[in-house]
């Protein structure tokens, strides 16, 4: 097949595309056309944007098409929010028995503390829904969707400090260097949308000065190709970096300019034959598409007032947790595979009684609204929503018991999941009277990852990437799917 012939086909298809693009046929079509025309060209991994994914993945029918993960960075207190223990009333201000602590290593922050007095939660708990889920008074809105969520009270992890713990949750390993959960999913499943990235990250503007820092690698691609990393949607400046022309050129003038650029690239392609040039042409088209689709996505003016009733007025403030929850729903509607929202400020080493209500208020309404909203749109059934931090907090007081804080606690903590094949209205796992040790159904971080992958139709032992001679997995050599919480457990 001659270059000239091939080139003419390409140009022809581009013309068709441009004719049609004004009537709404997207760049997907172009990428597809370019691709089809390249049957003779070896399919290089990663040569074409969008869909991709690995052959044979998903391994089986998924129950979730996408994930919205509301990560509560800094570690919320399970003692004060989810893990209701009337027993603590009696134990209040008593020393934590050494038998309960069982030699648990302590962080440098309380290792020097002489006494470990148990402090009960200063907040009331009450039951919600038909399932009778106990929740702290700090989470009234979540109570409203109690029958839609599944609370796991028996999470445990290995790390006792923020950096390794959040890195572990994000990548299955405490040290930096591995791909994040979202990157694994983009790599395995590819993208459902041609106009947006498969993996989007949003940061909540934190109102507390002392929030835990975050790092790009938490949504990084590790040893996977860098195109799998999460794309940050920002609430200041361009929503996506460099989305807008600072010179203010109009999209219309850019359209014809891009056509000329594509023509020049196509001439070169004819001369050289390198398929990377074809991809480059397609990527410029995709970039153009993003310039039109992202502003529309970020503009909430098409939302009815009822949306803001549901999510709260705060959802009108870009960067608030509520706004990010609403944005997450809009991204989910547009086919983004993995959406992660980081909400920070839970690291209450002192004054927990004062600080917790602030954080809980920030997260409660938006998170609950997201569940209700997805449900009313019939999207909850195939959207897995997750809410949780990187570890729990100690039942004993850090510092002065009158203005007590709680230190890091890896041995047990709570998080919740909803939709996407997870049983609704369920509580899984139990802890002891001290909220200190798990007594039933422990769920390790690796198990948690295996379960998420399972919901997406992926066998966590079979999603691998060969790097440095070894087949790496998100779950390393561990992980068991928690069948008990699934609507469709493994057969």
């Amino acid at each position: 097949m001659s270059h000239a012939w091939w080139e003419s086909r390409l140009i022809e298809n581009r013309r068709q595309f441009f004719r049609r693009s004004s009537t709404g046929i997207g760049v997907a079509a172009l990428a597809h056309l370019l691709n089809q025309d390249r049957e003779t060209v070896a399919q290089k991994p990663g040569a074409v944007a969008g869909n991709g994914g690995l052959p044979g993945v998903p391994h089986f029918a998924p129950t979730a098409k996408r994930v919205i993960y509301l990560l509560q960075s800094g570690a919320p207190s399970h003692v004060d929010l989810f893990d209701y223990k009337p027993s603590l009333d009696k134990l209040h201000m008593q020393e934590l028995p050494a038998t309960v602590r069982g030699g648990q290593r302590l962080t440098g922050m309380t290792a020097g503390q002489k006494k470990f007095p148990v402090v009960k939660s200063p907040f009331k708990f009450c039951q919600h829904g038909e399932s009778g889920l106990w929740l702290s008074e700090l989470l009234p809105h979540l109570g409203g969707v109690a029958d839609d969520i599944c609370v796991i009270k028996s999470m445990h992890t290995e790390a006792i400090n923020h950096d390794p713990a959040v890195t572990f949750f994000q990548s299955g390993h405490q040290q930096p260097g591995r791909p994040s959960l979202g990157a694994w999913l983009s790599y395995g499943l590819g993208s459902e949308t041609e106009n947006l990235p498969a993996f989007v990250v949003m940061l909540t503007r934190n109102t507390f000065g002392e929030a835990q820092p975050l790092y790009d690698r938490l949504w990084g691609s590790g040893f996977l190709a860098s195109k799998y990393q999460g794309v940050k949607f920002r609430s200041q400046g361009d929503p996506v970096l460099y989305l807008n022309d600072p010179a203010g050129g109009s999209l219309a003038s850019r359209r014809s300019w891009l056509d000329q650029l594509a023509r020049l690239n196509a001439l070169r392609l004819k001369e050289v034959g390198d398929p990377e040039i074809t991809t480059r042409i397609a990527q410029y088209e995709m970039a153009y598409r993003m310039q039109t689709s992202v502003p529309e996505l970020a503009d909430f003016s098409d939302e009815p007032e009822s949306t803001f009733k549901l999510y709260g007025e705060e959802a009108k403030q870009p960067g608030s947790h509520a706004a990010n929850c609403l944005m997450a729903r809009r991204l989910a509607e547009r086919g983004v595979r993995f959406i992660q929202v980081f909400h920070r400020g839970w690291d209450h080493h002192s004054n927990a009684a004062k600080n917790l209500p602030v954080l809980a208020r920030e997260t409660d309404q938006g998170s609950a609204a997201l569940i209700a909203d997805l449900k009313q749109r019939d999207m909850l059934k195939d959207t897995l929503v997750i809410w949780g931090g990187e570890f729990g907090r100690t039942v004993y007081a850090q510092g002065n018991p009158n203005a007590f804080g709680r230190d890091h606690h890896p041995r047990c903590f709570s998080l919740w999941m909803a939709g996407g094949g997870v049983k609704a209205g369920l509580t899984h796992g139990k802890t002891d009277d001290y909220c200190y040790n798990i007594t039933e159904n422990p769920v390790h971080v690796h198990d948690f990852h295996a379960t998420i992958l399972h919901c997406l139709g992926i066998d966590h032992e079979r999603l691998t990437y060969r790097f440095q001679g070894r087949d790496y997995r998100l779950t390393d050599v561990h992980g068991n799917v928690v069948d008990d919480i699934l609507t469709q457990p493994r057969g």
Partner: protein
Amino acid sequence: MVCWPRNVLITCCCLLCVSAAGAEEKVDFSRDIRPILSNACFRCHGPDAAAREAELRLDIPAGAFAKRKGKAAIVAGHPQRSELMRRISHADPDQRMPPKESNRNLTAKEIDLVRRWIEQGAPWQQHWAFQPLVQPALPKLAEDAWPKNPVDQFVLRRLRSEGLTPAPQAPAETLVRRVAFDLTGLPPTIEEIDRFVEDKSPRAYEKMVDRYLQSTAYGEQMARHWLDLARYADTNGYQYDTERTQWVWRDWVIAAYNRNLPFDQFTIEQLAGDLLPKGTAQQRLATGFNRNHGITIEGGIIDEEYRVEYVMDRLVTVGSVWMGLTVGCARCHEHKYDPISQKEFYGLFAFFNQVPERGLGFAPQESIASPLAEQQRREIDQEIARLRAELERPVDNAAEVEQWARKIASGVYGWGVLNPDFMKSSGGSKFTKQEDHSLLVGGANPGKDVYDIHARTDQLGVTAVRLQALTDPSLPGGGPGRHSNSNFVLSEFELTVVSVKNPETSQVVKFSQARAEYSQRNYEIKKAIDGTTSNNNGWAVDGPVRKKPVAAIFVASVPFGYEGGSVLRFRMRHEASFGTHGVGRVRLSVNSAPTEALGYVGPPVDIVRIASLAVTDRSEPEQKTLAAYYQQQYGRHRVLLVRIAALERGKATVFPATMVMKDLAKPRDTFILKRGQYNAPGEKVAATVPAIFPQLPADVPRNRLGLARWLMDPSHPLTARVTVNRYWQRLFGVGLVKTSEDFGVQGEMPSHPELFDWLAAEFIRQGWDIKKVHRLILTSATYRQSSHAGTAGYAADPENRLLARGPRMRLAAEEIRDNALAVSGLLVKRLGGKSVYPYQPKGLWMELNNRPGYSREYPQGQGEDLYRRSLYTFWKRTVPSPMLKTLDAPEREFCTLQRSRTNTPLQSLLLLNGPQFIEAAQQMAGRVMREGGEAVESRVVFGFRLATGRRPTQEEAALIGSVYRSEFVRFRADEPAAKKLLQVGQTSQLSQLDMVEQAAWTSVTRMLLNLDEAISKG
């Protein structure tokens, strides 16, 4: 073994991705069988004893051929009697190996290969990469004009065996661009292109290569690659990611490449420069290589846990960079594939376990001058010496005192209190002027308040401003602030000076430093002049506990004051979220004294009185008091000492402490760590090297120096191979061994085994001469081939493993940015120095980390700092520069041996809309108009040559010309759009060219810089 058919086989292997020898061919153990055994069997029947099943070991012949209970896994020549054969081809899935759940099932082809290998006698060889390196003889080829050096002979033999012929040589302008990028990371200038194209001498090409090898940009380009391997960064990584100053080490690398330090010395100095007998400071600086790992400062960490991580990182990095081995796999258990036991891992660990360091902390450190800034260091030392000599010089003290007294008397050295004539509060506060010219603030007490205070002065050469925050009974709480706790937070203190004579002449005063009598912790005075007010950043004074007036001095970077008088427009911002934290009573003064001499308060009234008297009118005690005060406050000695101290301090900033390696006087014991955990020590081990390799030479010490010498011993099978492979990878996109990060048994075989060993051996033979080995590859006919292979060529061999064409690939992140800067003329070529902060979208640092004291706004640079080469861009691990990261630069948390090379829409957006690239296009447009002749056509050619190195075809030129014309029409109709385009970036106002024309050309140059060809080497 026969030579040539083997090459055919490899083709099958690499092109068809099937490791199958043809039915009649001889099976090669290394190429065909070991990969199967390694991948499918070694996990349970390999080096790791703990994981070994059925006590069967298949990674060594002693295990594979051993008879156990009358059966052997492999019986040479007899597949049917080999237990291995029986099990891998078993009909019963429960009996079949490998087990189903391992996900490593063998294909029928693989099983057949194993069968035939056993049939052929099951010959066993050691893993190729562990075999001693022997330089193969050059292939004997029929006469051919194509080969230019031995590299080509190997390549041509392989091509012939494939029935292929080499591609023609690339055009001269392509070659010069390819070489320029490969050796310097920069495009050739038009003069350089012309010089090469016009040079018809027989050795024109070699001369051109040599020119680039001699350029200082060569060292920068080579260093850039090394920085990925060395996980170099300007921050400490982990959670807080605070800043470090390892750039001095980075300068060492650049200088080392430029003086062509041989690779063995390059290695020894970086791994063990501190241990060299009579080692120099520069050799100690080199050891920063092994301190480039991340260091955490997270409160609450367990010290030993992280100290152990750092040692691990060193070992894993050295294992990857010099040996291409995944030694880290043996941290927790025996290596699953390679012959490295856990004990041997900790034997290596012991070499790096001797540093006097902690998990929390940066010692050992040393201040060593950058080799690129020797001149600067000499100048500072000379100045210090001059001042010291000055100190020794005897002087007439009385005359000096008198001279000073006259200045005091005339008020020059005192603080001239300003008398404000305009005061305004953004929040409605009221100012009441007091007798001492201070302003008492009262009335409304808004949450945030900005005071605008104007005052006139006739003083010239004003060096500093004093702000006094005074107390007053009307203020709450007894201190100087307006809040009920009597504190204030001065978020920012700003000053604009306006000439009285020419009110349109004004300047914003930049304060170079600030000091205060008192600052609250985390609210230091410098935060009032750091340009940011977010996150309650500002100056506060512990108002709740310290109920005293307080003064601060702001030193202007350049003295100011207009002839004929100046109006000083002060702005005091109080924008902390605490609310009502305004200063309660303000007094402002100015001073023209040398800044070293400034006190918070001027000379006491009494001193001023004495100074005002004529000498004859002073009493003797008065004269003594005056002289004593002078000595104490302004004496020449004091001024000189202050200046010397300032220079010494400056030297510390120019040459900050850099982390280096050092060994403990008394060695630290090393233990096997069970499961790799810091708190689970097992058996004690000594510093040793793995048994698979030649042992440490008897005459070397058992420390890092010994280890470095061992690595560089010509008998080491890996060092030269791994290094040469990386050079090849950089030039051709893929290494001769594709898995440059794994030379173990799970890695790939070389595509050209004999070429590969020849090159590696040649590298050693030539004295590890880095420039020579590059010259060798670059002058080969192989490298000079055209990359225009047509779709069929690219389809047949997408990665160019056969080398039937020249290399073509997208440029690296740094090269793309440097290219734009270079062709626009913006590039600042200064070598080395502190890292710089080019353009970056606002807020990227603070949105991830806003902890006071641990983070700050990205301090975007000014002027030259925006246009330095990208390898000097400040590398923040947790938030790498988006310009570089978008184009696949790694985070540098760990050693990176191979960057991914992706092609994404986010890259298109960056190149389309990144201000750095738009500004470069603007300036490039300026060049096109100034240097490209008058006609549109000649300008098109000039611009196209800048972007791609070649002249456009007629079709291309016509297309670009039409773009110019239509953009010209568009901008003529919309001049504001033209203006806006030309205002992007900091250099915009420099151009005197016609605005519409330049905007239209900018549209063209933007397009040129976005061409695939402009961001590719081809």
